[in-house]
């Protein structure tokens, strides 16, 4: 997205200056970074990429003219607004620390992703109506955003505030916003740079414009690099500003800028890349103030017009040109090919001299690459075409020594004017010099005829006698005296790598040899170096790398993280890194933590097939490699860990649903179809990443996969740990593991509590049955006892002297009056007692029989009380068949007679009647003054019998007038 206000005049002028400057640049463009083109979806190809942002989870968000994409290295996932048909024109991207992604659009609306679409950010104040061009956050957590036309805004989570020219902003047309290390906002505008901050709620705006010395007021891009702010301008190139003083260090490039507007800036270690509208990428070296490269066309890409550049957290530089998305290592990895070097392409030897110039040899001779001019100079050693330099060394006087393959040893003096050859005549009995090492006056040669020690007693060019050669041949290297490499360590020990005899060390005149007898797996030693801690590292032809700490040898192979065991070169830098060169690129090892990173296919280093020991250090952390196809300059990174694949487990789904279950560790028995989505972010070469997964508790071992989804279906209940690890070379043993422990619950009928509960309920049920049975038995006992008691009481009561006496005195009076009546009376009396005897054994008798009993009893009492006692019965036909405990009614009537006055003045009336529920016995209440002694039977006994038999409660209602007993009607025996 570009908003260039440039007029025609400006353009014309730029083109003119460009023409002049182009010549200058061509001379120095010997170097090429590697650009890998990323395949983008067709939909992106039809539009253009406008902005990039890598979020905290390593995903790269790609804003385009038609929506937003999320990229994981392999796949693009599309996002668009959920409320509009038209795809969003994304113009700015940012993620705040709360993991919210902010998507600014050209129309001014701002969106946040929600689910798989974008939701409009809808603040009270409304969204801008001008394109959002950038986001940044200050130290208070305010989110700032710049617009093209409305100045800038900041959002404190509640309200949005605006800063524009009315507040003192240099211009309302803002190209970008960035925060410096102090949390101040730098805004690039059409009117210069504004530096904004909030102090005690007040807007503080400082201006940096042409008045302050800014070369051009139209500032298009900003990039912060520590205390330095780089500003890219419309016409004047770039400008360096001090963020503390806000002062301008001036235009830092020589002469007039000729490459047009600087759209974007990325900073690397001692380099800047500036992207331009027409001239591709301009590479700038701030320490020297020189433009040291211009990249507009690479082998596979045309990148003359650059929209955007973006530096991610893994040291990758992303370049956007139209709809092209390119990945580069920036100036950290530069290739010099044959045409750049004007030499042959197959490099046989390599050396950095004291001035930083690069000496190298090809089939076409010996060359020096001048690092300042970028030009390559050929050094003619001899007229013979067969002179092949295969080893190079610079002595402490600045002489360059070049060992050849069969043509002896050449010495080139420091001004490259004099060249001298040493050969067999000088004592150098073997002219195949594979490696040279030296210290002070001493120099060692590794040849196909043993080693040679050279003593430099004076200027080699002064005469052959100044150099002497002593051969260390068969007596030191018996049987096979091919020496591949020689190395002098910090303790002046001389190390020799031999062809089949292991590694030898010469110290204080004593030779020590280490080979298979000491545990080496391979006796062919190619390369030797020493790390800053004094440990010796050497490589073998096919058994990887060894580290010797003075006592033991430790082997490093692919299992340790080495990507190739066929090592052709070794270099140790001063920062505890080891560069390991092999046919398919190079590994860098951090010797402190045994972390490896690999440079290969993704950066154009696969199949480099280098000769033996063709590598050199330019300075403490820059290495040069000679390959079959030219030179490579590699900046050795400080922190390797962040450049390794960043393995992440970021999605857990159940039955492939949309919901992300990350954070949930307990799943139900029917949520047992679980998928794990993981990704090892390694944008350099994502297709090289392989995974191993296993589900502990389910899988027996690791399962290899290239897919980044692991799905497990029909998991039985249990505890599991999902584990994933990644590797780029298939050596998983040292790679970190991401794991996720979870549990699938048993269905409820298999859970322990359910089983326990079931057992408990069963036990309860059994107990209850036993208990109830026990209770029933007890009850039966009680009934029996109660019945016996009742029978006894009844008998006793009926045979009680009063009753008999009364009966007999009644009988006596009747006998006189009427003999027949007396007989009837006696018959009734005896029937009454017979009934008593008959019923006493029974629990229940029909009501009709009880009524008969009552009638008998009433007859007996009636003879005594005459009209003073009235028994009125009103029993329905229906209830006559119901049941009743025997002698209950009789007893109630007897009680009534016993406790109440029965006289002519106050006759006693007992009424018995039934309704659906009750048999009611009611008598008028006229208590005797002198109570007959209670027999203890009566109501309590009746109540108990009803209760024990389970026929309900009897109801007793007593008032001044009447006494009522209600007996529940029993329709059937239980």
């Amino acid at each position, binding site marked *: 997205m570009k908003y260039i206000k440039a007029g025609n005049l400006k353009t014309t002028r730029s083109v003119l200056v460009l023409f002049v400057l182009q010549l200058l640049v061509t001379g120095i463009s010997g170097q090429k970074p590697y650009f890998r083109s990323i395949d983008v979806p067709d939909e992106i190809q039809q539009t253009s990429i406008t902005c990039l942002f890598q979020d905290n989870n390593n995903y790269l968000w790609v804003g385009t003219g038609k929506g937003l994409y999320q990229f994981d290295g392999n796949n693009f996932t599309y996002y668009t607004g959920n409320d509009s048909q038209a795809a969003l024109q994304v113009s700015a991207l940012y993620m705040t620390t709360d993991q919210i992604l902010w998507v600014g659009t050209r129309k001014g609306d701002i969106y946040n992703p929600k689910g798989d679409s974008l939701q409009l950010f809808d603040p*009270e*104040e*409304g969204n801008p*109506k001008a394109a959002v061009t950038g986001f940044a956050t200050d130290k208070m957590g305010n989110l700032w955003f710049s617009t093209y036309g*409305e100045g800038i805004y900041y959002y404190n989570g*509640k*309200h*949005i*505030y*605006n800063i*524009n020219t*009315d507040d003192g902003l240099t211009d309302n047309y803002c190209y970008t916003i960035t925060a410096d290390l102090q949390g101040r906002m730098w805004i690039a505008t059409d009117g210069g740079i504004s530096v904004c901050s909030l102090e005690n709620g007040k807007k503080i705006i400082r201006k940096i414009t042409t008045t302050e010395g800014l070369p051009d007021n139209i500032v298009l891009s900003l990039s912060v690099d520590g205390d330095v702010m780089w500003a890219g301008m419309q016409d004047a190139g770039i400008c360096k500003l001090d963020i503390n003083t806000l002062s301008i260090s001036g235009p830092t490039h020589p002469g007039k800028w000729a490459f047009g507007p600087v759209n974007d800036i990325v900073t690397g270690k001692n380099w800047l890349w500036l992207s331009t509208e027409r001239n591709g990428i301009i590479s700038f070296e701030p320490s020297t103030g020189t433009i040291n490269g211009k990249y507009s066309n690479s082998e596979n890409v045309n990148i003359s017009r650059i929209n955007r550049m973006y530096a991610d957290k893994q040291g990758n530089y992303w370049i956007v040109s139209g709809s092209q998305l390119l990945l580069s290592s920036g100036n950290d990895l530069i290739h010099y090919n044959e045409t750049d070097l004007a030499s042959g392409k197959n490099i046989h030897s390599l050396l950095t001299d004291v001035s930083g110039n690069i000496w190298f040899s090809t089939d076409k001779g010996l060359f020096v690459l001048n690092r300042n001019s970028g030009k390559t100079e050929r050094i003619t050693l001899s007229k013979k075409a067969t002179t092949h330099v295969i080893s190079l060394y610079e002595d402490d006087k600045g002489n360059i020594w070049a060992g050849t393959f069969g043509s002896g040893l050449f010495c080139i003096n420091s001004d490259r004017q004099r060249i001298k050859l040493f050969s067999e005549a000088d004592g150098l009995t073997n002219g195949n010099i594979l490696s040279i090492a030296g210290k002070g006056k001493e120099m060692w040669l590794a040849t196909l005829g043993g080693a040679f020690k050279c003593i430099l007693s004076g200027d080699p060019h002064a005469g052959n006698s100044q150099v002497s050669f002593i051969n260390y041949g068969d007596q030191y290297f018996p049987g096979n005296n091919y020496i591949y490499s020689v190395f002098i360590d910090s303790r002046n020990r001389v190390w020799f790598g031999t062809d089949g005899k292991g590694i030898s060390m010469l110290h204080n005149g004593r030779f020590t040899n280490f080979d298979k007898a000491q545990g080496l797996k391979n006796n062919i030693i190619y390369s030797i170096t020493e790390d800053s801690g004094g440990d010796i590292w050497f490589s073998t032809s096919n058994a990887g790398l060894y580290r010797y700490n003075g006592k033991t040898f430790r082997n490093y192979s692919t299992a340790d993280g080495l990507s190739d065991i066929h090592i052709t070169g070794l270099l140790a830098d001063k920062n505890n890194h080891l560069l390991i060169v092999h046919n398919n690129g190079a590994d860098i090892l951090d010797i402190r933590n045994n972390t490896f990173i690999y440079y290969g296919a993704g950066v154009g280093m696969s199949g480099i097939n280098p000769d033996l020991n063709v590598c050199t250090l330019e300075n403490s952390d820059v290495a040069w490699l000679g390959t079959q196809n030219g030179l490579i300059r590699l900046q050795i990174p400080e922190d390797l860990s962040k450049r390794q694949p960043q393995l992440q487990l970021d999605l857990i789904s159940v039955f492939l649903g949309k919901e992300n279950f990350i954070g949930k560790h307990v799943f139900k028995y029917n949520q047992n179809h679980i998928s794990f989505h993981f990704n090892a972010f390694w944008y350099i070469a994502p297709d090289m990443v392989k995974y191993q997964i296993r589900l502990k508790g389910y899988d027996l071992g690791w399962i290899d996969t290239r897919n980044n989804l692991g799905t497990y279906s029909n998991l039985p209940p249990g505890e599991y740990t999902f584990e994933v690890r990644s590797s780029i070379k298939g050596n998983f043993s040292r790679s970190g593991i991401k794991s996720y422990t979870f549990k699938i619950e048993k269905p409820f009928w298999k859970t322990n509590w359910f089983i326990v509960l079931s057992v408990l309920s069963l036990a309860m049920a059994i107990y209850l049955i036993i208990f109830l049975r026990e209770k029933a038995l007890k009850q039966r006992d009680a009934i029996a006892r109660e019945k016996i008691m009742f029978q006894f009481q009844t008998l006793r009561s009926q045979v009680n002297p009063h009753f008999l006496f009364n009966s007999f005195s009644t009988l006596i009076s009747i006998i006189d009056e009427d003999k027949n009546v007396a007989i009837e009376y006696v018959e009734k009396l005896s029937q009454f007692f017979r009934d008593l005897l008959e019923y006493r054994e029974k629990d229940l008798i029909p009501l009709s029989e009880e009524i008969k009993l009552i009638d008998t009893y009433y007859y007996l009492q009636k003879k005594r009380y005459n009209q003073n006692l009235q028994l009125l019965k009103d029993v329905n036909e229906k209830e006559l068949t119901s049941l009743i405990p025997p002698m209950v009614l009789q007893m109630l009537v007897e009680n009534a007679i016993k406790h109440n006055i029965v006289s002519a003045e106050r006759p006693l009336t007992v009424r018995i009647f039934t309704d659906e529920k009750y048999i009611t016995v009611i008598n008028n209440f006229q208590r005797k003054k002198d109570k007959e002694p209670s027999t203890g039977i009566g109501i309590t006994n009746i109540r108990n019998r009803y209760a024990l038999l389970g026929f309900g409660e009897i109801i007793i209602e007593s008032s001044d007038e009447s006494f009522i007993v209600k007996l529940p009607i029993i329709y059937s025996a239980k």
Partner: protein
Amino acid sequence: MLFVAIAEITAQQNLYRTRNSKVDFVSDAPLELIKASSVKLQGVIDAEKRTFAFSIPTDSFKGFNSPLQQEHFYENYIEAKDFPTSNFAGKIIEQVDFSLDGTYTMRAKGKLNIHGVEQERIIKVNLRIVKGVIYADATFTVLLQDHNITIPKIVFQKIAEEVKVKVTIEFEKKK
């Protein structure tokens, strides 16, 4: 200051003045809903300069739930005696041609002065222009804390920290 602004604006051409206005506010607290409204908002827009100024007498709000509520509002919170007016003056962020009929949204950036405390605010306004008459409505929130309106703790539950304000105005061009 506001009156100076108004005076300055009134000297210009292309001015729009309030014809009718209504301001409602709602404080929707858990315990008590307080709402009131006023029709006394007055102001002008300078269409050319995109500047505006509005003012409302703070004691012009009517329609409280009870006279006691009204008394509290005037005496304890808004302190109408000390701060007789609330004002909003500033500039419209986007370009709007007031002579063209249509519906627009625009954002007014300005200084909102309530309770004697000035806060910069952006207020989003919906406009409908019909034959030179501008019908405007806007809804925004006022944080009491922003304007030093302190509430006794005990009443706190009765007043929301945030008060919702709804403004509807009709403007007509000054002749």
